C-alpha cells in the first residue's frame, strides 16, 4: 500500500505539470472576481465590463488622467474647442482603424452616440448625460460638432465615458465588440475566460502585453493563490485578509466612499444638532487597521481626493462623544424627539467585514444615547430605500452605502446625492441646489472653486450625512510584471499600464 502510494506520488511529481500553467513571454493572465454577463461597449461604464474592454478594446474621444492629475487628455480626439452656445468641436485623430479593418471617422462617433441613447437598447452610459439633449453634426470625416442642450461645460470630460464603435454596429447588444483600441477580443468562453490579443495595426504605441487572458474566481483567496502559484499575473481585487505578502500585495484607494445616508426630512434628523451628534459619535480612526484595512482614509467628502475641487480644508468630524451627548441633550430640551428609534441599515456583502463595522457603529451611537437598531437587507431592498420616491411615514433611517466616483469630476455625484431633486439626496437645501447648478455650468478654476465650496457647505454647514471612509482595495501583482493600481483600476484596467520586468 505504502509502496504504491509512493509510486503514484513519484509519477505525479514527474509530470511537467508546473510548466503547463506557466505564462508565456508577452502574455498575462488577470484574475477577476466578477464574471461578465455582456461584453457590450455602451455598458463599459459598468465596472465588470469596463475593467476588460474600456480603452483596451473600445476607446473614447477623451480620457481623464487618474495618474498624473493632468485632467482631460486626448485619445481618439486630438483636440477640442468650445464654439459657444453649448457646441463643442472635436478634431478626430487620423489614420485610426477599427479591429475589423474599417477606418474610424466622424460618422462612427455619431453612430456611437445615437446607439447610446437609442430606445432599442438600455445603454448604461447614457445616465451620465441626465436630461442633456445632444445633437451631433458631422463637419467632415475628422471633425464633429457636438451640441448639448442645456450647454454642458464638461462635455470633453463626458466624452471619456462614451465608447466608440463602428457605424455598422447594430442597435442591439453585441457579443463581439469591435473597437479602435490596442487589443481585439479573440475569445470569450462565458463563465470561464476572455482573451484579448494585441493588434499590429493599432494607431498608438504598441503595449508590452501581447495577449491577455481574463479568468474569473469569485473567491478572493483563490484569486490570490493563483497569482502566488504563477497561474495568474494580476488579481486586482483580493481581500485584506488575503493580502499577507508585502512583496506582491499593494493597497490602493478604490474610488468608493462609505457613508451613512441620512434623511433630514424625518424627525429627529431634521435637527442639525442631531446630525452633528451622529457624526461626532463615530470614532472613525478606531476602524482603520482593525475592522477596515490600513490605508483606508477618513472621509470629509463623498468624492475621493483625486476629484476636481476636493477640499483639503474640510476635515472629517472628530470623535467627541461628550459634545455629541451635549448636543443631544440640548435638542431634547427643545422638544426634539431624540429618543426615537433609528434604523442603521446595511447589506451583508457590501464589503468584507461590513456586519462588524455596522455593529461597531451601532455601539458607538448607542454610547452617546441614540436608540439604534441594526437591519441587514438585500441589495434590492436597500436600493428601494436609497432612491426616491421615499415612503411616507418612514422612520429615521441611516443607510450604510458606498458611492463610486472615479471619473474625476464631482458632477457625477453631487446632483444625485445633494440636490433637492437628486434621487438619493437626503437634503433639500436651496443654497446647495444653487451651488450645484453653478458648479455644473462653470469651467476651469471657477468650477473647482464652486465644487470646493459645495463640499465645505454640505459637510460643515448643512451636515447632510455621515461621511465615513474612502475605501481601499488590495491587488496582488505577480513577479513577472510591473503594475501600479490607480483609483480607476476598479472600473478600468488598461493593459497598456502593465509592463514586464
Amino acid at each position: 500500500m505504502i509502496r504504491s502510494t509512493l509510486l503514484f506520488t513519484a509519477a505525479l511529481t514527474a509530470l511537467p505539470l508546473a510548466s503547463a500553467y506557466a505564462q508565456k513571454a508577452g502574455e498575462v493572465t488577470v484574475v477577476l472576481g466578477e464574471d461578465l454577463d455582456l461584453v457590450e461597449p455602451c455598458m463599459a461604464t459598468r465596472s465588470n465590463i469596463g475593467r476588460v474592454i474600456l480603452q483596451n478594446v473600445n476607446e473614447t474621444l477623451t480620457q481623464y488622467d487618474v495618474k498624473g492629475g493632468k485632467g482631460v487628455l486626448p485619445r481618439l480626439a486630438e483636440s477640442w474647442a468650445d464654439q459657444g452656445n453649448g457646441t463643442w468641436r472635436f478634431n478626430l485623430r487620423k489614420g485610426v482603424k477599427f479591429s475589423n479593418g474599417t477606418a474610424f471617422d466622424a460618422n462612427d462617433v455619431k453612430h456611437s452616440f445615437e446607439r447610446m441613447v437609442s430606445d432599442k437598447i438600455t445603454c448604461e452610459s447614457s445616465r451620465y448625460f441626465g436630461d442633456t439633449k445632444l445633437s451631433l453634426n458631422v463637419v467632415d470625416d475628422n471633425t464633429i460638432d457636438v451640441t448639448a442642450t442645456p450647454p454642458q461645460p464638461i462635455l470633453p470630460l463626458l466624452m471619456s465615458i462614451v465608447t466608440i464603435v463602428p457605424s455598422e454596429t447594430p442597435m442591439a447588444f453585441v457579443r463581439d465588440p469591435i473597437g479602435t483600441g490596442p487589443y481585439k477580443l479573440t475569445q470569450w468562453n462565458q463563465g470561464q475566460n476572455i482573451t484579448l490579443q494585441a493588434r499590429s495595426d493599432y494607431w498608438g504605441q504598441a503595449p508590452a502585453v501581447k495577449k491577455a487572458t481574463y479568468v474569473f474566481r469569485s473567491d478572493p483567496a483563490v484569486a490570490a493563490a493563483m497569482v502566488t502559484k504563477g497561474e495568474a499575473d494580476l488579481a486586482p481585487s483580493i481581500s485584506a485578509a488575503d493580502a499577507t505578502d508585502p512583496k506582491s500585495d499593494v493597497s490602493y484607494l478604490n474610488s468608493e466612499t462609505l457613508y451613512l445616508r441620512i434623511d433630514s426630512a424625518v424627525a429627529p434628523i431634521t435637527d442639525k444638532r442631531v446630525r452633528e451628534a451622529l457624526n461626532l459619535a463615530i470614532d472613525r480612526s478606531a476602524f482603520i487597521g482593525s475592522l477596515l484595512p490600513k490605508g483606508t482614509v477618513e472621509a470629509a467628502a463623498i468624492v475621493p481626493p483625486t476629484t476636481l475641487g476636493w477640499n483639503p480644508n474640510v476635515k472629517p468630524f472628530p470623535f467627541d462623544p461628550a459634545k455629541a451627548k451635549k448636543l443631544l441633550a440640548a435638542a431634547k430640551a427643545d422638544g426634539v424627539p431624540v429618543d426615537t428609534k433609528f434604523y442603521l441599515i446595511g447589506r451583508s456583502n457590501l464589503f468584507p467585514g461590513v456586519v462588524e463595522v455596522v455593529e461597531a457603529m451601532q455601539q458607538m451611537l448607542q454610547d452617546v444615547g441614540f436608540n439604534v437598531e441594526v437591519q441587514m437587507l438585500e441589495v434590492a431592498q436597500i436600493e428601494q430605500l436609497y432612491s426616491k420616491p421615499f415612503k411616507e411615514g418612514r422612520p429615521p433611517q441611516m443607510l450604510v452605502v458606498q458611492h463610486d466616483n472615479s471619473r474625476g469630476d464631482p458632477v457625477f455625484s453631487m446632483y444625485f446625492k445633494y440636490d433637492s431633486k437628486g434621487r438619493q439626496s437626503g437634503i433639500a437645501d436651496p443654497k446647495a441646489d444653487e451651488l450645484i447648478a453653478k458648479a455644473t455650468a462653470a469651467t476651469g478654476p471657477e468650477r473647482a472653486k464652486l465644487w470646493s465650496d459645495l463640499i465645505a457647505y454640505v459637510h460643515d454647514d448643512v451636515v447632510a450625512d455621515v461621511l465615513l471612509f474612502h475605501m481601499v482595495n488590495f491587488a496582488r501583482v505577480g513577479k513577472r510584471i510591473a503594475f501600479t493600481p490607480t483609483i480607476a483600476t476598479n472600473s478600468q484596467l488598461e493593459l497598456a499600464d502593465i509592463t514586464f520586468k
Partner: protein
Amino acid sequence: MPQYASRILSSFFSLALLLVLVFFLSRLTGDPAALFLPVDATPEMLNQFRELHGLNDPIVVQFGRYVWDVLHLDFGESLRQARPAIDIVLQAFVWTLWLAITTIILVSIAAIVIGSLAAFRPGGVFDRLVSLISLIGASAPDFWIAIVGITVFAIGLGWLPTSGTGTVWHWILPIAVLFIRPFGLLLQVVRGSMVQAFGSAYVKTARAKGVGNRSIIFVHTLRNAMLPVITVIGDQAAAMLNGAVVVETIFGFPGVGKLMIDSILTRDFNVILAAILVTALAIFIMNLLIDLAYALLDPRIRT
C-alpha cells in the same frame, strides 16, 4: 409498464406546477431593472428597460406570453446576457452533468467496495477506521475542504492547478471535494445494509454450504443490500445535478448551480425558469433510471 406512464404523467404535472409557481414567486421578489441598471439610472432608463423586456405588462399577460412561448419551445432571452436562456442553461448544465456523473460513479464504487469490506467484520480495526473516515467525510464543510485542498495540493505541493478548467488535472480537486461528503454518507449506508444482510438466514445457509467469502459478499449479499444504497445514490446524484454551488464558485467551474444562484440574485427570470426546467427534467430522468435499477435488482418489484 403502465405504472411508468402514470409516473411520467404525474411528473409532467408536477413540473408544470413548479414552473408556474416559480414564475409568479420570482416576480414577487421585485424589479430586475433596478439591478441591471445602476442606482443613479434615470426613471426613464428604468422604464425603457422594463418596456423592452415586457415587464410593464400585467403579470397575467406576461404569464400568457411565457406559456405560449414555452409551448413553442422558446424559453425566452436572458435579461442580463442578451441571448437565449436555454442556451445559457444547457451550456452550464453540461459542466454540472460531467461533474455529477464522474463523482457519483467514483463514490458508488468506492463506498460499495470499502463499505462491504468493513461490514464483513463489524467492530474490527478496518471497520472502525472506515467509520471514522466516513464520519469526518460526511461532516466536513466542503468550502473548507476546497480551500485546504488548494493550499496543500496546488500551492504547497504544486501538483494540481488551483482552479479553473482546461485540462484533466483541473477536474481532480473539484471532484475530490465533491466526492468526500456523499462518500462518507454512502459508506455508512452500504456498511449498515451489508451488516444486516450478513446476519440473514440465506448467508448462514451459504456459509454452511461452504461458499467462499468473496462469493458471499459480491454475489449473495451485495445484490440484496443494494436497494437502500441505490436510494441514497439517487438522492446524492439529484443534489449534485442541482449544481455544486460551493465547488463551482471556488474552483471557477461554470456549472448550473452557480448560474442558478446568480440568476436569482440578478432576477434573471427566464434563466431561473430554464435552469429549473432542465435540472428538474434531469432529476426526473434519473429517478426513472433508479426505478429501473430497482426492478432489475429485485424481481418482486417487476410484477
